[in-house]
């Protein structure tokens, strides 16, 4: 070992090793199987509930919207819950088991360790979401085809004009598997990335896992409601009162991302188009907050003693 090695931060291979280790650690945890099986059963249950026709007058795309809403709900729940709990559990576990000693006693910068942990959790969420997305898209495609077939048959037997049939076809396929739907799923992943980074930050200075999990969920809710609250306080501020509350809200708005921006899932569920621009904004926002929180975590973690 004559040659001198210098260890730069964020060496991709080292981070990848740490991330893969976290990934296998999570996969081999029974909790993960449990969650994953639950999520898949929840998705497949929708498929077993066979479509019933209520005649052409009923809102025939309603069941597709319902299906998408259900699936996206399950995916969001899985992603957020898993992101918070997994991130909150992993770090204190390493400290408690003193596994961390042996890792940090190797030439591993602390930043790499943190990034590796977060990346491992996110990798797992990404793959799980991709699997669930695959199931959802397949189910949706089949159901859309069925619906389309049935409605076409009905329309033709009633002698609709070609134009009317075409517009109905367009309307139905918009509720089927579309790119906006994929954008919706992506936004769920991005949301879980931010939530995970918040959880990571909290776990670097909290002393109990339970505390981390609870506060992470509170932060998640704060991020969700801050837009509403900010709106409310802006209204009161315009009415001439600067309350203490409005100041607090401004601070909160700085620290917490506005999670309502991630509600493009709703648009995707409604079958409305999601613009590429909106996706880019979300992507930028996610990168910004994840980097911010990770740097803050590092700031706390680099002075930590074990």
């Amino acid at each position, binding site marked *: *070992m004559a040659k001198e090695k210098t260890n730069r931060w964020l060496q991709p291979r080292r981070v990848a090793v740490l991330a893969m280790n976290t990934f296998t650690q999570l996969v081999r945890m029974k909790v993960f199987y449990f969650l994953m099986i639950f999520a898949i059963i929840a998705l497949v249950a929708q498929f077993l509930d066979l479509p019933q026709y209520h005649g052409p007058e009923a809102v025939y795309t309603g069941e597709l919207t319902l299906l998408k809403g259900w699936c996206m709900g399950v995916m969001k729940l899985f992603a957020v819950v898993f992101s918070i709990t997994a991130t909150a559990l992993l770090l204190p576990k390493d400290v408690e088991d003193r596994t961390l000693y*042996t890792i940090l*006693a190797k030439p591993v910068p602390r930043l790499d360790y943190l990034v590796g942990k977060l990346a491992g959790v996110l990798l797992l969420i990404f793959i799980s979401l991709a699997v669930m997305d695959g199931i959802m898209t397949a189910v949706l495609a089949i159901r859309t085809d069925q619906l389309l077939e049935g409605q076409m048959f009905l329309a033709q037997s009633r002698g609709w004009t070609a134009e009317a049939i075409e517009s109905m076809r367009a309307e139905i396929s918009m509720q089927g598997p579309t790119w906006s739907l994929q954008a919706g799923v992506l936004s769920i992943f991005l949301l879980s990335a931010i939530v995970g980074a918040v959880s990571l930050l909290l776990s670097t200075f909290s002393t109990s896992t339970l505390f981390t999990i609870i506060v992470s969920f509170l932060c998640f809710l704060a991020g969700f409601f801050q837009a509403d609250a900010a709106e409310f306080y802006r209204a009161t501020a315009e009415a001439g009162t600067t309350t203490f509350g409005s100041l607090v809200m401004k601070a909160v708005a700085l620290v917490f991302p506005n999670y309502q921006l991630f509600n493009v899932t709703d648009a995707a569920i409604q079958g409305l188009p999601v613009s590429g621009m909106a996706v880019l904004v979300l992507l930028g926002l996610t990168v910004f907050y994840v980097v911010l929180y990770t740097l803050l975590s590092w700031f706390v973690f680099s002075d930590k003693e074990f």
Partner: protein
Amino acid sequence: MTQLAVDIRHLVKDFRSPLRGVKAFRAVDGVSIQIQAGEVYGLIGPNGSGKSTTMKALLGLVAPTSGSCSIYGKDSMKVDSRNDVGFLPENPYFYKHLTGAETLRFYGKLCDIRGKVLEARVDELLELVDLRDARDRRLGGYSKGMLQRIGLAQAMIQDPRLLILDEPTAGVDPIGSRQIRDLILKLRDQGKTVFLCSHLLEQVQEVCDHVGIIFQGKMVKEGRLEDLISLEDQTEIVLKDADEALVEEIRGLVERTGHASLVRTGRPRTTLERLFLQETQGNQPVKGGEK
């Protein structure tokens, strides 16, 4: 001048109490340790005297309150100082979800060893610490001594010049304990530097060139083992088949010289450890602790 493997200067470490107003607890108080490359240094002292804390400071796991630590001239608070060091913490504990071989692979990759070199190294180390049979078992099912062994293998994965071992033989059976002792001696022959602490004084005595005794955070005695333990004014004579009369004659001889005195006579005993080894190895020749 050859570079010091370990250079700890006036290390002081205070642990602040989470309660305000309570005075900080001084775990290490002005300890200085210099270890030359190729030496085996043993740190001994009662429980809570600051041995592990000193080692952690040397590895940058805790920041010194004052003083400095460096490994081969590199400051311990910098990541680069850890290139050439292997650490076995006390009561090591690893990822339960990994098997023995996977654990070593993981640490190897962290040290930037890959591919065939890594595989060969993993096999070699598993062989060395006698865990071949357990290579594909998860660590969740390892016993305490097995964990200790895998920890030792993990510390040596990148073939570092310096090994820091915090109680390497804790929880290891006498055969394994002796294997570890032999291993340390072998490492010394290879020119590696070892910094260890242990409560098994007999073992420390067997392997260390230098010894430091630490008590309540302070270094109370330090030096070459030879100088510390040899009783300069005594000479040992061990006789075989000597009868009572001969012993009496010798006693008389000693008394007649006037200036010397006979301190004790009796039968030297084999140590319990030796007896245990004899018995256990006699019944299980396959285990073969000694090579």
